[in-house]
């Protein structure tokens, strides 16, 4: 089936899958957003335990999505993986440290004799939810703004400055994207708690908190989107790479599917805010989730399709990466495409398990009676 597809089609298919995984990860960042709201939404130890229990049953899915996103990037676009991770070294390492400390914090936080103390594990969760998420946004934004790298004839790459990615945190576009997903994660966390927790006081605080985070998210999203559509991008042809003004705006109008998907995604997120804030609905997280996935897939599609560089080089434009020059071979993409047929099955069992675990909303009584609560 996949063997008959052209290399370009396979590259496009895999860019879509990478975008989908990235989008699912962004959706699951509501866990990180929730971690930053722990002390805002919970005023007592009991309430804290409820919030941690609610997040604690989901955090591994987000963690796995990040690993999967990296794995898919490695397998499908090894040169992008090599250049970005091997070059923006400090940024990616900082992100990884933020996730290392998350992985132990749920399990160890309330265990006796836990060495760092409960407060520090909660700080770890806060760092993961804030610094980790903003830095991921910054790192992903560099795919639009580019990096200071060159590659030689053997496709081996090197960074041309000695800040190894730290310079990315000074770029306003990158920061705007980081803050956008940070506030999106917090807004989605509030909607998730409203859906998942049956403690009126927490739900009420979450609804209040949502107002602020939704406004900040919309503000930063508009800033980011405006900058994206007005910025130049790198286009490529068989012969050359060229800087094109308003490249992403052009991409948007030249690919109506992406335009429709992006607008639908954004509207769904806004609709989620509306029904949660003004209709007291508990279903906001689902609309927001679908909207987030559509929006992020659309944004990454703007980057990957229509002859656009997925990682422009700021040092040597000819070194810029595209889905065509950074991908795996036809054979590997074909083999991996067969493996990708498992994705609906995996999403299916995740949905069923999630549904059976969440059919009763979390209460403090349940958390207290649970032998293994976090």
């Amino acid at each position, binding site marked *: 089936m996949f063997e008959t597809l052209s290399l370009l089609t396979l590259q496009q298919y895999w860019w879509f899958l990478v975008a989908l995984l990235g989008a699912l990860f962004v959706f699951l960042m509501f866990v990180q957003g929730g971690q930053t709201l722990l002390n805002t939404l919970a005023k007592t130890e009991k309430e804290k335990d409820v919030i941690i229990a609610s997040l604690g049953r989901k955090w591994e899915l987000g963690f796995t999505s990040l690993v999967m996103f990296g794995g898919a990037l490695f397998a499908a676009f090894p040169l992008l993986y090599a250049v970005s991770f091997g070059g923006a070294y400090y940024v990616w390492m900082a992100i990884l440290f933020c996730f290392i400390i998350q992985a132990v914090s749920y399990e160890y936080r309330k265990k006796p004799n836990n060495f760092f103390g409960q407060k520090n594990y909660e700080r770890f969760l806060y760092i993961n939810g804030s610094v980790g998420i903003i830095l991921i946004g910054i790192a992903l934004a560099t795919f639009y703004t580019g990096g200071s790298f060159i590659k030689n*004839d053997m496709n081996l790459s090197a960074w041309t400055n000695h800040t190894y990615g730290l310079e990315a945190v000074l770029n306003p576009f990158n920061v705007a994207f980081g803050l956008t997903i940070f506030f999106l994660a917090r807004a989605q966390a509030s909607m998730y708690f409203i859906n998942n927790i049956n403690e009126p006081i927490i739900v009420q605080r979450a609804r209040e908190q949502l107002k602020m985070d939704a406004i900040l998210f919309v503000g930063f999203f508009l800033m980011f989107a405006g900058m994206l559509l007005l910025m130049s991008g790198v286009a490529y042809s068989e012969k050359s790479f060229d800087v094109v003004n308003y490249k992403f705006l052009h991409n948007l109008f030249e690919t109506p599917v992406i335009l429709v998907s992006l607008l639908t995604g954004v509207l769904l997120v806004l609709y989620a805010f509306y029904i949660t804030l003004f209709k007291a609905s508990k279903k906001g997280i689902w609309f927001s989730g679908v909207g987030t996935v559509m929006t992020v897939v659309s944004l990454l599609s703007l980057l990957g399709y229509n002859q656009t560089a997925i990682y422009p080089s700021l040092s040597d434009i000819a070194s810029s990466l595209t889905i065509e020059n950074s991908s795996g071979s036809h054979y590997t993409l074909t*083999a991996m495409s067969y493996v990708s047929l498992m994705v609906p099955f995996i999403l299916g069992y995740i949905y069923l398990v999630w549904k059976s675990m969440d059919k009763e909303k979390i209460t403090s009584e349940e958390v207290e009676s649970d032998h293994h609560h976090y």
Partner: protein
Amino acid sequence: MEDILLTDWSRAQFALTALYHWLFVPLTLGLSFIVAIMETIYVKTGNKVWKEITKFWMTLFAINFAIGLATGIIMEFEFGTNWSNYSWIVGDIFGAPLAIEGLMAFFMESTFFAVMFFGWEKVSKKMHLLSTWLVAIGSNLSALWILVANGWMQHPIGMEFNPDTARFEMANFFDVLFNPNAYSKFLHTVGSGYVMGSLFVVGISAWFLLKNRDVVKAKKSMVVGATFGLITSIFLIFTGDEAAHQVALTQPTKLAAMEGLYNGHDRAGIIAIGQLNHNKEIGDDQEEFFWSIEIPRALSLLGFHDMNAYVPGINQLVYGDMDHHNIEPAQSKMDKGKVAIAALTAYKKAKKEGDTAAAEQALVDFRAHEKYFGYGYLKDPKDIIPPVALTFYSFHIMVGLGTWFLALFFFIIYFSMVGKLDNQKMLLRAALWSIPLGYIAGEMGWIVAEVGRQPWAIFEMLPVGMATSQVSTTAVQTTFWLFAIVFTGLLIAEIRIMTTQIKNGMEEH
């Protein structure tokens, strides 16, 4: 060009993070199955004691699992951050198993982990049991795919070099998947995890018996742990034999280092125990060992399944022995490798200039010497030999400890069956102190496999020095120390939490 300092720090960082990660993985692999077996007994018998036993071990499993995840996430991304040349040169083959691991194993583990720990009252007994088994299967599937990737590093097959992209590309997925080296490694590695899980259960149960606490639960746990341990220890011997056989067939330099064998010969014996002569240099006439006890012909038999087989030594592998055993000198391979590198460079230049005839000629030259491509980057023929002392002692400590574990499980089962386990204080203490020995054996196994692979990232294809990212040495030093501090802190936390949980006993708290 190769920066030795950068290479060594990159290597050190990967070794540090992998060794830390490998402290936790074997227990996850083994304990997940033991917990699943315990829960199965509970579901079959309906005996609440088994439920409490299951929950106790499950809690310890979770503590270990969390730090396993924390130390594991870095492993995948380090290929990009520290080994970016590697990621490009072999990413077309190596990336696929990692991605499949994430898709098949990690999602299964993370999804059903939530049911396993929080689903006791939310799903049916059978669904809960299924979830526990799926976590165990997911953990082991994860090991399968990572060892398919690692097996390919040890014995690269199923690929070809594409001079246009300057990388190795996958030519046959099934060759990569069914690489015999990968399977022997997978079975031996998960086997070592099962033994580690068994040692953990047996050792902690022994502590309870020594303290005369939770005696019934401890004895029941011990029977499950020791039985699983005995069966898997026997399994470990057979898989170890096959793994060593694969090493003999495909990685002669590693085998020679494992045995400290400098001069190859027919009917070679295995050193059961010995002290290497640390003054010995490759090519000199000094004795290999200060003292040793050898099992005659055993290396030929186990390595090649033939008591009379010839086993090449370090000297033959470095200096060659074309006359008797058709072993090419390393220098000759390096010379051919340099020809391959020059031909590839000429090919790329000719392509760029549009000189088709020159490109074709360069390609012919390259293909003629392609097999030796990686050798072209080595500087000294002696570089093909991994650190002998480290590999030798690691291998022998691992084998010695594995033998001890088999005996330990046997005696525990024997005394359990005759009802005299409580009186065997020495044996119970030995069981307790065997827990750290299990960790040591596991780490030694990792050293044999990975240090024994040096100087290659991909055996005989890509030297480690060519695989690193071109970041500054300072950057890698910085992250090395950060990892050392963070992982050590987490390890201290893990040990303290674990020991406290154990001291709290097997009752639900």
